[in-house]
């Protein structure tokens, strides 16, 4: 099979091998609905193009409904086979018959984009609201064909007349012979209509699929669109299967009485000379100040930044780097791209929004100097040319992460700066994957909801392979059943079909001219967002600039944490900045090596934590490796253990050759990064830069297995030609394939590693501020607030409860207080001397920020509330809010526990204090039953999500001891192989794709954490207990690997009843 140059084009389906026919009959089909008319068209762009080419068509048009979303794919496919494409769209009007519209030239294309943008911006996402007036106003340089529909009415005749006046020779009547009633009589009506108004007929087959066999799928798509089943779809389906690409001979025969209609198609195709390649993308030009070219300005910024970054003089190596990079940027004419990114970063800095660039081009000396990244090129050796190679005729790749709570400000800045018609968010095409495909097809085929869900769950792996009879039997389905067979067949066909457009996570496109003349823009489902119709791949194919504006929770946390630290500092002390954090602090590395990393960016996951003590990082580059190594790629490529053995000196580091030594030296001969994989292919197997880039794309298109196999032969051949052993070549290929599942580029790893270091440094030196910062940035990271607080307490930080006289909305720093709290015995003491943390009202479930701000304001005005009575009267809060505060135990400041406080606030009327308040009769004091401790803790969890009093498990320890359950800390000195029972709250359940169905569960009790490993068979047996209980008992034997202890589970049991309603939210990750 020839290699697939564009990963978007899937392999031609085996079901149909087009025969090339003699094309002595010239035909151009202009009315084609692709599957980008969502749930209407039943063929991919490339299928249509390949079939049209095979049938000898002279040209093919694309007319998706109110959309140009599929044109790039069609363009790429048509270019590949050398078929002329006529770009167009089918427009639907609220007051007029449909029109097929094809722009004649670039101008007409701009008009069509603008028209669609108007129609789409007017209404909700995915809809288009156009009237004929809009069309007549805007579209001049187009060919149009009116679609008269089944029966010709007076209105249609009128419409044709009116349009003829405006479009003149550029109007046709779209006639199709689809045998829905008598073709000839229909044709004659149209001919008569055309003759009356002097408008020629255009032959088209209203194509919805490339081959007749796709008709069933088209029916199913119709059913999905209408939400009905195939059995009750009735007239919503097409009456027959005629809407495929017919041969030119067939078309000629259908229109034998009206050969002009066929010629008309060729005429239009000839007239419409517009081609997507004519779209010239231009970078916005307002970024450089007057009088300076963009390159000069970038150069100014870089050198000014360098002077600032290196106050003691720019090192010679850096100077040289900057010069080289600027030269390359100039050659590739991508300076404006850097200025665009710089502009966003500058805006964020001015607003105090923390941000960091990431991606291949981000870790360049220029980016460091202009402040896009904080990764010092002096600290890490990354070659710029590797990523921005002249061969890759694509804009460079820089993603910028912003604080997740403030990213929207940056996005809105872009809209404001460039305007809605010059900037837009990239679309994301949501396509049918295994489950959604089975679900929708099954429903449309009339299967019961329960059966469909069952099938979808059982067949989740569908998209990896084909469905055999044995597999169907395994899941209890009868492969001979017609409906089952149809569902299987149609699901196979629908996989990869686009279902709708969504917005890309952060990709934004900005242009010099009007973006709305480049591509239609529509509203997103989110307010204030506008999205273009093309996705990342389309934009890449056309060479359009995109900047990824991403959200990162850890940046929010770091920003908040640094704010706390600076607030505590004397005013004259220099404030802490992210880039002024001291580098290479041994205490930070020591902490990381002990896996004491709850809350630290990236390395807080359980897999990372079990790697840390083995890797024992002691310099920045170790963190880069740490980030990259615990990824499915290296794990599946079997690179982790060789690397660890070499690092610990248990294996000698050997390089198969000198050239490869240069590539692999920094990772001890084991490729860990995507870039290395590419270099190995280039240096070892003699790949050209372009081929290596294709390899990279193949690796990135994860799960599309097969793509990478094409490179197998090439790599083996190339490497043996260069004198490497077959064994080594196979090993290299295996490693490369591993990257297919999740390779991590070194440049990304370096940027992430910086955040790892910064967050670890903050945790080590300012544990209270770090804890408060994390709590105020929730939800983020792996751990729930209860574990974050507990971890702070373990480090000696005093954590104080929510209190109406002390707390604010956010968690705050409190004056130093006696360490710990409840039953926590601090394990480390570096938080003991620093400030404590006061929990904020944000921790209380169901309180609104507005109400809390009001409480705090009133409190500041009156200098603190004196009594419950005072509080209620001053705030005049509703009984519901008062009750919520009482239930959250926030009134201890008045000496009131939960129940008395609740009694006191119940039945209060939410009116400001009246004149007669003192005349209110005093109520007799009541004695309510005291709340037992277990219930107090339970109530803490229910209202605040954590308890500072006791750990819930501590309260039932006596019961657990009777059941022979040991505390988690005892696991530390349990010998390997010993049979144990542990119990705890379920913190995290994880089922990584790489671990062949093994489930990892982390339990927490009052003494610490127990790591469980559950094999698939055990998991299946105890699924209920594992997945649905808060408190669980695990029985199994101890396994040890260095410092890391696991329990290999044999049995799980739900003990939640013991807690009596204590809620604990675990975080589940797949």
């Amino acid at each position, binding site marked *: 099979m020839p290699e697939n140059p564009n990963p978007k084009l899937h392999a031609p389906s085996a079901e149909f091998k087009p025969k090339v026919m003699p094309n002595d009959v010239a035909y151009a089909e202009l009315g084609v609905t692709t599957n980008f008319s969502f749930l209407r068209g039943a063929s991919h762009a490339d299928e249509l193009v390949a079939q049209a080419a095979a049938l000898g068509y002279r040209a093919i048009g694309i007319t998706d409904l109110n959309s140009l979303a599929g044109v790039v794919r069609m363009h790429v496919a048509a270019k590949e086979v050398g078929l002329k494409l006529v770009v167009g769209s089918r427009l639907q009007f609220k007051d007029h018959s449909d029109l097929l519209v094809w722009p004649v030239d670039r101008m007409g294309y701009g008009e069509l984009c603008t028209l669609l943008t108007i129609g789409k911006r007017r209404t909700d996402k995915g809809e288009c609201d156009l009237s004929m007036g809009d069309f007549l106003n805007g579209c001049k340089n187009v060919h149009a064909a009116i679609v008269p529909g*089944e*029966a010709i009415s007076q209105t249609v005749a009128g419409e044709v007349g009116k349009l003829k006046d405006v479009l003149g020779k550029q109007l046709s009547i779209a006639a199709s012979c689809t*045998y*829905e*009633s*008598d073709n*000839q*009589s229909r044709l004659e009506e149209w001919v008569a209509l055309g003759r009356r108004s002097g408008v020629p007929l255009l032959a088209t087959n209203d194509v919805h699929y490339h081959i007749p066999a796709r*008709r*069933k799928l088209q*029916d199913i798509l119709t059913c999905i669109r209408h939400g009905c089943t*195939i*059995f009750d779809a*009735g*007239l*919503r*389906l097409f*009456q*027959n*299967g*005629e809407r495929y690409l017919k041969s030119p001979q067939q078309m000629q025969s259908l229109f034998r009485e009206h050969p002009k209609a066929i010629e008309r198609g060729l005429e239009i195709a000839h007239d419409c000379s517009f081609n997507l390649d004519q779209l010239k993308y231009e970078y916005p030009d307002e970024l450089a100040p007057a009088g300076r070219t963009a390159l000069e300005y970038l150069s100014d910024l870089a050198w000014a930044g360098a002077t600032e970054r290196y106050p003691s003089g720019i090192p010679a190596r850096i100077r040289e780097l900057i010069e080289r990079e600027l030269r390359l940027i100039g050659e590739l004419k991508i300076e404006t791209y850097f200025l665009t990114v710089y502009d966003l970063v500058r805006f964020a800095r001015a607003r105090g929004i923390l941000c960091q660039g990431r991606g291949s081009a981000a870790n360049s000396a220029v980016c460091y100097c202009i402040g896009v990244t904080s990764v010092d090129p002096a600290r890490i050796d990354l070659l710029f040319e590797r990523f921005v190679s002249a061969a890759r005729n694509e804009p460079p790749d820089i993603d910028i992460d912003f604080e997740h709570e403030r990213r929207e400000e940056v996005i809105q800045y872009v809209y404001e700066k460039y305007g809605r018609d010059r900037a837009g968010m990239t679309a994301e095409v949501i396509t049918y994957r295994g489950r959604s495909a089975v679900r929708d097809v099954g429903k449309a*085929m*009339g299967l019961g909801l*329960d059966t469909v*869900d069952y099938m979808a769950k059982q067949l989740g792996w569908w998209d990896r392979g084909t469905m055999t009879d044995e597999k169907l039997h395994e899941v209890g389905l009868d492969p001979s059943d*017609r*409906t089952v067979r*149809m569902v299987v067949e149609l699901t196979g066909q629908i996989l990869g079909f686009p279902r709708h457009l969504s917005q890309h996570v952060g990709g934004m496109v900005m242009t010099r001219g009007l973006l709305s003349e480049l591509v239609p823009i529509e509203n997103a489902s989110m307010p204030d967002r506008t999205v273009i119709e093309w996705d990342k791949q389309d934009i890449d194919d056309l060479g359009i600039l995109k900047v990824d504006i991403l959200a990162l929770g850890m940046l929010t946390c770091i920003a908040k944490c640094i704010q706390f630290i600076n607030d505590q500092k004397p005013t004259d002390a220099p404030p802490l900045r992210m880039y002024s954090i001291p580098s290479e602090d041994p205490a930070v590395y020591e902490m990381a090596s002990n896996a004491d990393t709850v809350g630290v960016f990236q390395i807080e996951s359980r897999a990372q934590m079990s790697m840390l003590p083995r890797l024992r990082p002691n310099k920045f580059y170790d963190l880069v490796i740490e980030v990259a190594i615990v990824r499915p790629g290296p794990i599946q490529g079997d690179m982790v253990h060789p690397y660890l053995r070499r690092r610990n000196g248990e294996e000698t580091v050997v390089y198969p050759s000198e050239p490869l030594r240069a590539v692999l030296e920094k990772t001890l001969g084991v490729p860990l990064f995507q870039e290395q994989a590419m270099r190995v292919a280039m240096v070892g197997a003699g790949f050209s830069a372009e081929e290596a880039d294709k390899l990279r794309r193949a690796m990135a298109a994860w799960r599309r297995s097969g793509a990478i196999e094409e490179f197998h032969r090439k790599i083996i051949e190339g490497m043996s030609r260069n004198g490497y052993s077959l064994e080594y070549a196979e090993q290299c290929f295996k490693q490369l394939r591993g990257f297919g599942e999740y390779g991590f580029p070194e440049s990304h790893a370096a940027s992430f590693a910086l955040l790892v270091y910064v967050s670890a440094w903050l945790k080590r030196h300012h544990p209270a501020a770090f804890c408060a910062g994390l709590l105020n940035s929730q939800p983020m990271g792996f751990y729930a607030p209860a574990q974050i607080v507990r971890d702070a307490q373990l480090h000696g930080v005093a954590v104080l409860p929510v209190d109406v006289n002390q707390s604010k909305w956010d968690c705050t720093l409190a004056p130093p207080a006696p360490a710990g709290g409840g039953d926590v015995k601090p394990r480390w003491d570096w938080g003991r001397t620093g400030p404590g943390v006061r929990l904020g009202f944000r921790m209380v479930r169901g309180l609104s920020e507005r109400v809390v701000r009001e409480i705090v304001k009133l409190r500041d005005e009156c200098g603190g509330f004196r009594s419950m009575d005072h509080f209620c009267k001053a705030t005049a809060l509703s009984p519901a809010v008062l*009750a919520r505060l009482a*239930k959250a135990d926030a009134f201890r400041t008045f000496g009131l526990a*939960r*129940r008395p406080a*609740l*009694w006191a606030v*119940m*039945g209060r009327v939410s009116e400001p204090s009246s004149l007669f308040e003192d005349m209110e009769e005093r*109520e*007799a004091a*009541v004695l*309510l*039953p*005291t*709340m037992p401790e277990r*219930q107090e803790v339970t109530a803490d969890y229910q209202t605040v999500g954590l308890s500072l009093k006791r750990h819930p498990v501590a309260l039932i320890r006596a019961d657990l001891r009777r059941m022979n359950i040991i505390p988690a800390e005892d696991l530390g000195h349990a010998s390997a192989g010993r049979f144990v029972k542990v119990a705890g709250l379920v913190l995290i359940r994880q089922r990584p794709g790489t671990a062949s169905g093994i489930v990892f569960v982390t339990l927490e009790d009052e003494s610490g954490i127990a790591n469980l490993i559950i094999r698939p068979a055990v998991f299946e047996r105890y699924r*209920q207990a594992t997945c649905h209980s808060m408190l669980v008992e695990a029985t199994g034997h101890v396994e040890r690997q260095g410092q890391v202890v696991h329990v290999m589970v044999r049995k799980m049991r739900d003990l939640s009843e013991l807690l009596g309603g204590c809620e604990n939210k675990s975080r589940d990750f797949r």
Partner: protein
Amino acid sequence: MLVGRIASRQVVFHACDIAIARGVRAGMTLAEATALCRGLVHGDHDPQRNARSLQAFAQWMIRFSPVVEASLPDSIYLDVTGTERLYGGLERLCRLVSESLKKLRFSTRIAIAPTPGAAWAVASFGRRDRAIIAESGVSEALAGLSVAALRLEPEILESLDALGIETIGQLMILPRKSLPKRFGAPLLKRLDQALGLIAEPLVPVRFRRRIEAALEFESPVESLEMLWEALNRLIAEVTDALKTQGRGAKRLVLEFTSSDASRTQKEIHLSQASADSAKLFNLIRLASEAVKTETGFVAIAIKVQASEKLTHEQMSLLHKVSREAERDFVDLTERLALRLGENAVRVAELVPHHVPERAFRLLKFDSPSSMALKSELPSPCHKARPLRLLPTPTEVRCMIYPLSDEEGIPVSFMLKGQSFQLAHARGPERITGPWCEGRDKTREYFDVEDKAGKRFWLFRISETRKWYLHGYF
């Protein structure tokens, strides 16, 4: 287990003890419950049916006391004041009720107390399945019970729980005055009702006698006239009973007992409820004509199995005629159905479907108003469709022109030995069969006219090239 639908989820409403023991709880989704408990049987939760059965059950309970109240979802109150003597003590009454219910396979909890509130509390939350509380023991009996025994709204129970007030005893020691302000009026009201401080009269179910009439003959009767005479008397009895209740019969059962003691039953369904003796007689006569006997009948009976409240229609001045015509029509269809069988009277309904024989369906006749509604559905009626469609297409032999062309036009065809020379042929219109049912062949329909001016609807199956006649225009 009973399952209902909340939004699109199927949620458990009630479950049996066995399911509860396996961990099934109300509020779970059906999927969760089935996962917990393999082989779980479930039915739809139907609150209305539930209410109806409880009402019927309350009717049945009237045998123990004249004053019976049914209280949703699952309680029945009996006023047993003064019945001790009848049953020889409350103990015995209690046992009697419990045993009779056991025979009906109901599990019950029974309490007899001075107030309905206390009885409910003890029955629902007491320790024993049967309990009798004396006049003086109410407050003591209640003190130890959960506050939930007071029939309170969930919100009030939640507030009480938050304050740690678990038992009625704890509630009773709180200052009365402070309660309404905090929990609203219902709390005190329920407490006082239970304690008998305020009265709570029962709302008894109305006793409704079953309407039926029977007649036994002294010797077997064979003559139809005599039978009709007897039926007339029974009908008069039944209609009188119906009229006093203001109801009309919807479903009747006729029962004939032969001298050999074998029984024949005949059901009569009415489209509209009626208590009109003449109408009923006509129907019954029609129905009894089909009943055969060798030996004669010794007894006949009429039982009203379903009845409805008669609505006295407002007779509008202008539509009187059409109304009467409509009623006559209904009568006719009822009589036809009795004579020819339930399925004989049908009404056609249009169905939106491309395949001609699927574009309509025959329904049981219901009432004229429903018929009007059904004909308004869309259909591909703007296309050429014949007036008469054959129930199944008949294969014909057909000549086409040009002969060699697969897409040739029909020029003549043979049907039952007769040849038709065609003057015109319009088409083809292609219709593909419902592939989801395994019928994915395409038919090519032609609207043809022979030289004599007769129009036919022919089709050719694309795949087999065979020709069929499907209708006449």
